[in-house]
């Protein structure tokens, strides 16, 4: 069974009413969602990823992501023998249509989904000159597209390459962890459609969330730990060749 956040169908109308408060700009007044009760992250289980691209397509559909830009993408790694520092990586159209068939070329081959790591000490928010990108009290890094200047400093500052400039709005854009879904008790679009459970939304502040047990019992990493970004996307079974 998938391990994802659920709300019973009956609570959805109540949530809709509660969003009147959110729309007024005071989410903490909403009876259902309290900003301070959550600290969002994600768990990516690499041995489970089959590179089907469902997550990339779902994200594009859920969030109107423009063609040629990616809020999430999948990389295919081929590590020949011991050449851990020099993997061959490809990501055709971000993996949106899956990957072309590969004959078995030996070595080690696997898929790595990537997205914004929603860093707790985010370098992109540090450099934003006006406060258009920020970390919410519940741990999601968002962009205020009505305030963003489009200076692109945040795109330069992100070590993971997860940001881009939307060609229509001319503002910075990236994965929002489907903020409009997770605050309604749904899971992210990418986690919803992942057929193998390789991607799972995690609430690090919820003691009942299985992420805690998982982190204790598995070998997990974050991307580029030497950057000390406080990344909150955890990768299980990640090979040392992953860049």
């Amino acid at each position, binding site marked *: 069974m998938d391990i994802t956040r659920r709300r019973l169908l009956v609570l959805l109308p109540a949530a809709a009413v509660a*969003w009147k408060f959110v729309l007024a700009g005071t989410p903490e007044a909403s009876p259902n969602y309290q900003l301070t009760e959550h600290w969002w992250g994600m768990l990516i289980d690499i041995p489970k990823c089959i*590179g089907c691209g469902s997550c990339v397509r779902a994200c594009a559909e859920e969030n109107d992501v423009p063609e040629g830009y990616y809020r999430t993408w999948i990389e295919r*790694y081929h590590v020949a023998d011991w050449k851990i520092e020099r993997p061959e990586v490809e990501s055709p159209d971000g993996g949106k249509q899956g990957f072309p068939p590969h004959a078995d070329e030996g070595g080690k081959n696997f898929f790595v989904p990537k997205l914004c790591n929603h860093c707790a000490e985010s370098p992109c928010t540090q450099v934003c000159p006006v406060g258009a990108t920020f970390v919410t009290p519940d741990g999601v890094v968002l962009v*205020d597209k009505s*305030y963003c200047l489009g200076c692109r400093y945040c795109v330069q500052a992100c070590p993971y390459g997860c940001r881009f400039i939307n060609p229509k709005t001319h503002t910075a854009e990236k994965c929002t962890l489907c903020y*409009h879904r997770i605050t309604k008790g749904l899971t992210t679009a990418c986690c919803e459609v992942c*057929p193998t459970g390789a991607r799972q939304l995690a609430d690090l502040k919820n003691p009942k969330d299985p992420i805690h047990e998982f982190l204790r019992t598995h070998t997990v990493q974050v991307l580029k730990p030497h950057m000390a970004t406080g990344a909150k996307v955890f990768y299980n079974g990640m090979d040392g060749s992953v860049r």
Partner: protein
Amino acid sequence: MNLFKDIEHLIRLAAVIAIALVAFVILRAAVVPRSFGQYGHYRGAAIGEMASRPVAFAGHDTCEACHTDVVDQKELGKHVVVACEACHGALAKHADDPGSVQPGKLDTAVVCARCHEANSAKPKGFPQVATADHSGGLACDICHQSHRPKIETEGKK
């Protein structure tokens, strides 16, 4: 008083600077959005705005509330873990108004291949085939029932 005369130009300059500063403060009070600084150095109202965006994917719980027959089928096989919209696409609009928005028929040759086309990077235990050899280009649902994909050698399909 002589000194005053000799620094008169500097006093005028200081006055110009003071006026500019006051104008700036007034401008700031008028233009900066009200909710700025509410939670941090950003426009607090942005959180609510982002949260109130409409959803495109209904989530499989919503689908399962109506389509219980499909749920029964899926529970018998491996696809029980696959969310409905992973294959059928985003259908929140259909869930809101089932009559007016109908999901389209899927082209199984495309949809199934995304997951099940053989690729050396896929986990070894995951069911994958080279579709050219496996079915010679035939649509997958000619032999397989998508919601319960395993072909039973005895009993009903």
